């Protein structure tokens, strides 16, 4: 057997014989078990010691499957094929047995009645998988992939098959499994029996699909609310984004750089912050509300809460995304086409209408679908501004946290939401998906973009300026609002909120972070800093497999890895709660579940960045490395990764920042021990404690601006430093 097979077998045995099999109270990196009754205490014991004491006998087969390759192959001169088949068999048996026993026996013995009647009652139980079980699972997985490689898949490349296996396993466990779990819980009634009738009754409920409002009633179903809002937002952000893209590329506008800087804003802004600013402006005691009320002597109203508020907030939040997409589209229209049209005597306006605009059509559709998905998935803005306008994403949340705690209802709502976003995602991929990957080649065919005709340019300017002024006001509000005693009622300036949140004191032990926000702040930094590199690794590895390797089922693989883009955070949150609350994978209440949710929520963006940057690297570089005797792993680490440094940094920054600003999935997954900044802020908002919420939001924005800036500096540095060290060594 080769080295890597031995390595995994040995690791598997370590997991089986030395590490605690079940999950530990103090987490994966807690080592209390070492000093507290290990290895015999059943809570801390490795599988081997459990078995020796005659406990958890159902773990015994795992030992057989682990030893199978050693017994059957050893170092005997069997054929390659035979060895591969043995590994394959051991891997499949091991993984299936892990799954079977894990789902059959839980906290209360047998998980299914049928098993109890079949095998008789079981007076035992088991907890979630711990370090030992995890290592054994990994060992079986890689024994399996080594077997598959040995049978000749991907030219027998162990590293590539292992990487594919790892990604598939993770996507299955952390994306598909929770979703399936959620579906199945929607299909069950409160006693746990499956019933399609009950599901349909719940799913087709009037509260979801009712059309009352069309018949003069007050309310329509939440699904229609969400759909209406999403279409509206998708359409508006596309129009606005196009206006900005046109101004940025085809006008003499002087502050184009500034316009481009706006695209960074939504990345560094927690999604509900815009909502908060809108409240400061238009809320009952908002500045503009008060101003108008005094001017016209009107009674201030709560008109902003509901559709108008959410709509404005989402427009402000998501227009930059549309802009980002459309600027590429607008620049992608070849100038020579437009010039050709002009030489054929078309006026500027005719050129725009008959050539440029039609060429942009797929890009426009793409922007619309993105806006649609974002609006559907948005949780923060409807939460702070929703009023009586219920949408799916917030209803899911209230179904779980409210007095009702109705997981079945949450699951049903989540399915409705998922149907919308997946349809949009599917449409996007079906019609335009591939196009968004093609990177622009350097092959410019020269020529200048035609300037916009006046009748297009003027409205564009107007829209862009209005939006710009509004955005600046909004961010000004946020920064300023943190220093105001009580907005609208007592406008004196104060540091009170900052001191409450981020006060620092001294005590006998030195500096003491006594502010209320420090806890969640540090947790957030820690979780985000853990998630960022992992997201980057998973994303880039996937991108590398997609761009550089050929294997059966690649299309399905790609679809699976991009899918989580279309799964709203609220859905992830609900499904994680349903899937990972009980053994065998017990994660709720840990930091790990937050990290994992970030990795798989943000993975598609890492994949996209990786694909874009990897397509720029000549494939013959890999091949040269291979013919020079390097294996795939070495080629990946020595050639590909160094050349992708900018993309890696971008992926790191992006996933870090996203982890700091996310709210929708987070709010389901936080716990007393692991509270995150965003959910803390939302908590303050719900207590009408706007001062602290706004102060904290400003701090987050500033921190993230600093991170983005620092990273950009670093990316610039990397190249120059390389240059410098070169010239030094020459001197």
């Amino acid at each position, binding site marked *: 057997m080769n080295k890597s097979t031995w390595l995994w077998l040995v690791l598997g045995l370590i997991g089986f014989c030395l590490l605690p099999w079940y999950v530990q109270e103090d987490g994966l990196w807690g080592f209390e078990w070492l000093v507290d009754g290990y290895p015999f205490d059943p809570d801390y014991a490795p599988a081997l010691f459990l078995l020796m004491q005659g406990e958890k006998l159902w773990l015994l087969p795992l030992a057989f499957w682990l030893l199978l390759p050693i017994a059957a192959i050893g170092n005997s001169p069997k054929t390659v094929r035979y060895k591969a088949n043995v590994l394959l068999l051991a891997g499949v048996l091991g993984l299936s047995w892990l799954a079977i026993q894990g789902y059959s026996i839980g906290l209360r013995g047998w998980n299914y009645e049928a098993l109890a009647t079949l095998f008789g009652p079981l007076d035992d139980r088991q907890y979630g998988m711990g370090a030992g079980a995890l290592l054994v699972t990994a060992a079986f997985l890689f024994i399996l992939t080594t077997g598959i490689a040995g049978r000749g898949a991907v030219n027998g490349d162990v590293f590539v098959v292992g990487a594919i296996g790892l990604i598939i396993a993770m996507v299955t466990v952390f994306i598909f499994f929770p979703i399936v779990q959620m579906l199945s819980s929607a299909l069950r009634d409160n006693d746990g029996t499956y019933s399609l009738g009950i599901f349909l009754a719940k799913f087709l409920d009037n509260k979801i699909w009712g059309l009352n409002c069309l018949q003069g009633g007050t309310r329509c179903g939440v699904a229609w609310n969400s759909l209406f809002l999403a279409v509206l937002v998708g359409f508006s952000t596309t129009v606005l984004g196009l206006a900005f893209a046109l101004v940025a590329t085809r006008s003499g506008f002087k502050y184009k750089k500034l316009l481009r800087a706006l695209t960074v804003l939504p990345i560094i802004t927690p999604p509900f912050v815009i909502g908060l600013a809108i409240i400061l402006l238009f809320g009952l005691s908002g500045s503009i509300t008060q101003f108008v009320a005094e001017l016209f002597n009107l009674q201030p109203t709560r008109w902003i809460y509901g559709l108008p508020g959410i709509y404005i907030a989402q427009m402000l939040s998501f227009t930059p995304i549309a802009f980002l997409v459309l600027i590429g589209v607008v620049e992608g229209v070849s100038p020579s086409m437009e010039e050709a049209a002009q030489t054929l005597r078309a006026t500027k306006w005719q050129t725009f209408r008959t050539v440029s605009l039609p060429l942009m059509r797929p890009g426009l559709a793409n922007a619309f679908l993105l806006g649609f998905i974002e609006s559907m998935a948005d949780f923060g803005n409807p939460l702070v501004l929703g009023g009586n306008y219920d949408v799916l994403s917030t209803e899911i949340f209230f179904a779980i946290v409210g007095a009702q705690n109705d997981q079945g209802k949450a699951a049903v709502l989540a399915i409705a939401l998922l149907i919308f976003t997946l349809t949009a995602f599917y449409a996007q991929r079906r019609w335009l998906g591939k196009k968004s990957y093609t990177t622009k080649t350097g092959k410019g065919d020269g020529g200048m973009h035609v300037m916009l005709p006046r009748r297009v340019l003027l409205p564009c300017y107007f829209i862009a300026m209005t939006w710009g002024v509004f955005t600046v006001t909004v961010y000004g509000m946020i920064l300023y609002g943190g220093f105001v005693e009580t907005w609208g009622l007592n406008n004196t300036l104060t540091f009170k909120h900052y001191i409450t949140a981020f006060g620092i004191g001294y005590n006998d032990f030195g500096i003491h972070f006594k502010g209320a926000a420090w806890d969640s702040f540090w947790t957030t930094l820690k979780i985000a800093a853990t998630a960022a590199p992992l997201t980057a690794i998973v994303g880039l590895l996937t991108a590398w497999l997609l761009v550089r390797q050929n294997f059966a089922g690649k299309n399905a693989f790609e679809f699976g890895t991009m899918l989580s883009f279309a799964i709203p955070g609220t859905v992830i949150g609900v499904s994680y709660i349903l899937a990972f609350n009980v053994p065998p994978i017990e994660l709720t209440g840990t930091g790990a579940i937050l990290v994992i949710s970030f990795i798989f929520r943000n993975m598609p963006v890492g994949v996209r960045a990786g694909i874009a940057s990897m397509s720029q690297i000549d494939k013959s570089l890999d091949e040269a490395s291979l*013919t*020079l005797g390097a*294996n795939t792993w070495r080629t990946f680490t020595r050639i590909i990764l160094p050349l992708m440094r900018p993309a890696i940094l971008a992926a790191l920054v992006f996933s870090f920042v996203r982890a700091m600003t996310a709210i929708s999935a987070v709010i389901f997954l936080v716990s007393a021990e692991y509270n995150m900044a965003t959910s803390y802020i939302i908590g303050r908002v719900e207590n009408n404690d706007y001062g602290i919420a706004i102060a904290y939001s400003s701090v987050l924005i500033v921190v993230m601006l600093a991170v983005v800036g620092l990273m950009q500096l670093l990316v610039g540095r990397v190249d120059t430093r390389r240059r410098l060290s070169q010239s030094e060594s020459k001197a």
Partner: protein
Amino acid sequence: MSESQFGSKAASVEFQQVSKIYGKTVMAVDSVSLHVEAGELVTLLGPSGCGKTTTLRMIAGLEMASSGSIKIGDTDVTHVPATDRDVSMVFQSYALFPHMTVLENVSYGLKISKMKKAEVLDRAESGLELVGLSGYGSRLPSELSGGQQQRVAVARALVLEPQVLLFDEPLSNLDAKLRRQVREDIREIQTKLGLTVVYVTHDQEEALAVSDRIIVMNNAVIAQIGAPRELYAQPVNEFVADFIGEANLFDAQVTDVNDTLATVTIGDMQITIAANGNAVGPARLAVRPQAIDLYDVGEPNSLSGVVRKASYAGSHMEYQVETAAGQVFVVSDAETDRTVGADVCLRFRSTGPVLLPPA
């Protein structure tokens, strides 16, 4: 170039019935069998898309054969991936690692083969010396000219003392003047070190100049294998006759076969040449344009025709002559001066015409 320390582990290459199918339908290489001797420089020559690069990549292990078997030396490597084959390749784009210096590039393969540091450095330095680039070690590839980059690529492949060294159109990114120089350099290093080299090109002149033997490919199959002279003088089919130097192709009639000699009639002309396996009956005759002489009207045993085009090409004249046997392309001395519309007679030189073997 100094005495080099590179020995040679040159090995032979053998293809048996090797095919490569991309996807389900694209037959890039169709049951090709070939043999390259150790220490020999063999070119794969053929028009674009005929499967040369695919063949080369199968030697390197970058593509796996769909069927058939490949041997390097005495080892069957059909299922061995590139990493584990002792074969180096110089890529068309050179594929120098842009983030490594010249020296790091050249040492890359040596470091991987777990050689001692001092030896790695030593070998890399002498590799650079061999290609005339000592002193350039600390530069980045982007700081070199195209020709220099290419020599780095050659050095990087050479220092590993591969059993087989592969070149994929190595001259295509160089300007015309450099090409002759570089191809001579490659040939010189190859002979000096006794390397087995497989060299891909679509340029017949380049192939004739550098090769011990040439493998002509067309449409995924081998059209002919032979030494340059052999291919030029004895093409076995119309494709090779036309692709290696140009050739006029005539429909001829074999009227008599006597031992190995055939009597052939083309129009009014009768010649006697090697039969090449043809029996009495129709046959195809290939004649190089340089092997046709122009005579005035009345020459006995000749093809009469009319000059349709005449163009001056400096070193020679090119004529297009219309005859009863079809259009004939003739290249003759710059001194001949026939005008368009003139009546002429054509005769073949005795070594010129070749009967193509029956298909």
